[in-house]
């Protein structure tokens, strides 16, 4: 896509330069030369160069487009520029590996990233699978590894909402996957800028972990424990809710648990399990997820997910010493072996899908 076409399609022409995007951009608060508004302006002035390093600052949180009064689709605009950059020989890896070197410590696995240890685990706590995330947070809080945790809980039914909490009860209540993006990183920005909190644990999706690491680079004094969640794709709640009602005849807002397993989307509600094909809810998939290539949260201290473990267990990938320290606190842990091939299969599929979409988006770029 030519830049002009990209500008048209993503409605950059609508920009009134109000700055609401940049004021809300978590990364802009720390990387002072990165600003969605400024990039839009540059593009409109015909000065944008896709090889510019700044386009890799975006973490695809979509807060900018969500709050833009002019309906500019910045995330897609940035993905479009990235697609073009990739064509001109720039490698996405460059930006990830720089952060890996800074924050992680382990052996490099071609597919899974930096790994110190990989295992399947289960605690006595009830969670999405093995209750690992909840247990890591409560254990860390008890041992004062961190003062507060940034987690995603359910509000107004099953809508994901990011909160900062020092309360173990709130952490336990936040258990379970939401399959939605919630701007956890916004809470982190507040925690850093509003001061006080210097030791924080944060549970986030792979895309957010990328942004969190970029911010952390600018603020090394903040001691962070990052727990990444495996993520193939997420959904817009506003789109998903009516879709679920249409397909399954249930109110997603009343669900006890939702799950994506082996190509099925499962909603547990009122003691019953309703199932549909994941393909059927495609149109609720978050736009940025289409282009993402990171399944296992490659930059987290610990990544957790269900793929690769037997039922009731969670796969745990420890990627740093910090991750190891935190994992070491778990009590009553039961472990078993991981099916690495199953993880690799999904890592590769996610990567291929993302690259294919990017290629599609970049298709027809004139060199």
């Amino acid at each position, binding site marked *: 896509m030519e830049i002009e076409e990209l500008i048209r399609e993503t409605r950059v022409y609508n920009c009134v330069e*109000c*700055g609401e995007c*940049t*004021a*809300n951009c978590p990364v802009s608060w720390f990387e002072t030369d990165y*600003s969605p508004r400024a990039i839009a302006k540059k593009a409109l002035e015909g000065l944008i160069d896709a090889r510019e390093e700044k386009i890799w600052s975006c973490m695809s949180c979509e807060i900018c487009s969500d709050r833009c*009064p002019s*309906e500019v689709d910045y995330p897609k605009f940035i993905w479009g520029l990235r697609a073009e950059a990739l064509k001109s020989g720039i490698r996405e890896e460059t930006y990830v590996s720089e952060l890996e070197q800074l924050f992680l410590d382990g052996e490099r696995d071609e597919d899974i990233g930096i790994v110190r240890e990989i295992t399947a685990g289960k605690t006595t706590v009830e969670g999405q699978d093995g209750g690992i995330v909840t247990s890591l947070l409560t254990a860390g809080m008890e041992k004062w590894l961190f003062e507060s945790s940034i987690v995603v809980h359910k509000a107004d039914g099953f809508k994901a909402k990011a909160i900062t909490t020092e309360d173990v009860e709130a952490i336990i209540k936040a258990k379970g996957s939401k399959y939605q993006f919630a701007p956890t990183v916004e809470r982190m920005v507040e925690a850093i800028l509003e001061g006080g909190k210097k030791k924080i644990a944060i549970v986030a999706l792979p895309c957010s972990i990328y942004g969190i690491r970029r911010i952390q680079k600018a603020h090394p004094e903040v001691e962070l424990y990052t727990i990444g969640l495996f993520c193939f794709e997420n959904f817009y709640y506003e789109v998903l809710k009516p879709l679920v009602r249409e397909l399954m005849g249930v109110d997603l807002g009343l669900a006890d648990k939702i799950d994506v397993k082996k190509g099925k989307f499962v909603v547990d509600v009122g003691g019953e399990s309703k199932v549909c094909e994941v393909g059927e809810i495609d149109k609720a998939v978050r736009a940025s997820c289409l282009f993402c290539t990171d399944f296992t949260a490659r930059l987290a201290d610990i990544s957790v997910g269900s793929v690769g473990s037997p039922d009731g267990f969670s796969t745990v990938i420890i990627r740093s010493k910090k991750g190891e320290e935190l994992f070491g606190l778990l009590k009553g842990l039961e472990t078993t072996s991981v099916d690495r091939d199953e993880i690799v299969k999904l890592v590769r599929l996610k990567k291929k899908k993302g690259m294919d979409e990017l290629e599609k988006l970049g298709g027809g770029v004139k060199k």
Partner: protein
Amino acid sequence: MTGNKSVVVIGGGVAGIQAALDLAEQDFKVYLVEKNSSIGGRMAQLDKTFPTNDCSICILAPKMLECFGHENITVLSYSEVGEVSGEKGDFTVKVCKKPRYVDEEKCTGCSACEDACLLKDRFPNEFDMGLGKRGAAYLPFAQAVPRVAVIDEENCLFITKGKCGKAPACKEACERDAIDFDQKEEEVELHVGAIIIATGLDAYEPYEIEEYGYGQIENVITGLQYERMINAGGPTGGHLVRLSDGKPAKRLAFILCVGSRDLKKFPYCSSVCCMYATKSGMLAREHEEDMESFVFYTDMRAFGRGFHEYIERGMEEYGINFVRAKPGKITENDDKSPVIWYEDTLTGELKRMEADLVILATALMPSKGVEELATTLEVELDEYGFLKVKDSLYSPVDTTREGVFVCGFAQSPKDITDSVAQASGAAGRAGEVISFVSAK
């Protein structure tokens, strides 16, 4: 053409009042229908008017009284239009007069009932945009016209529970025996030759814009709430205070375009906020020398005569700080001061600023109930819910139905000056229609 040489004006704000007076002065009979218990509309709530900083109610009150006392005008307050039939020159309009449970003829507006009401100061006062409190029996505001009390039937103990003390307290207190719990809804049938719609505006309440914290952060208020707060007759006696602790508010932040110029909400410009925010900053400084004001704007839209100069005066004489930014969000400090997160788009710097009060200049929209009214009148609305006109250039006050005209904010966002001018235009067009009618 046979029909009626009279006009019904729907809406008793400044536009409706102006249209009614213009027609009445030409010796036409006018019925002014107002859904609230007093005429005056939004202008009655404002403290001062721009760009002259004149006292709003001081200009409006004489007009309200003139209207009410005019031999050719019948004011039907606390009334709504129910049914409309007929055609240009010969309409039948049914008006439903809601019971106010107070005899309009007997009540002198002494407020004895208000003081006696057992539920005094229990409910948010609509006129003060919820900042002040009222009872179940109350006077809408000091300069209300008609100056007649009203009893809120949803809350009154006697009406809802059948019991209020030994005898209804208001009834006991009233020396004129004006309280009348037997009042029923009344239907009035009017025969008129033309209809003017002047239903005005409502302000958007920005609860759904979560990042600005309205309804969550106590010191975040709306533009109309500010008008009531800075008004000497308002709930704080004209003192600007932090709602969290009642301490003086010294640092004010006005945020423009909240919900307006937003393609997902109200895509149009409300047209008055740049000016009223500037006015508000000036007035704050007139109240207290050490008051600081910040106006966060996207573009300054000061298009009227003298408007640009007004903003320059605001900057130079009153020290108002204009910041080119649409803030991203507002958070709250430990002492409950709101903190504004923004990008100064002139420098590209990201900043946070603490304030005592944040005032959201929210989108102004067609008043609630206009859709229903449009259905009743069989007139069309535009995409935003404003009354559609036949041709915005050549017939800017003619609705899509013959004999039905529109003026003021109901037609499109505009300030008082333009509303009044358009009201005179609508009165002229309505007069034209009824001039050629020979009475039945």
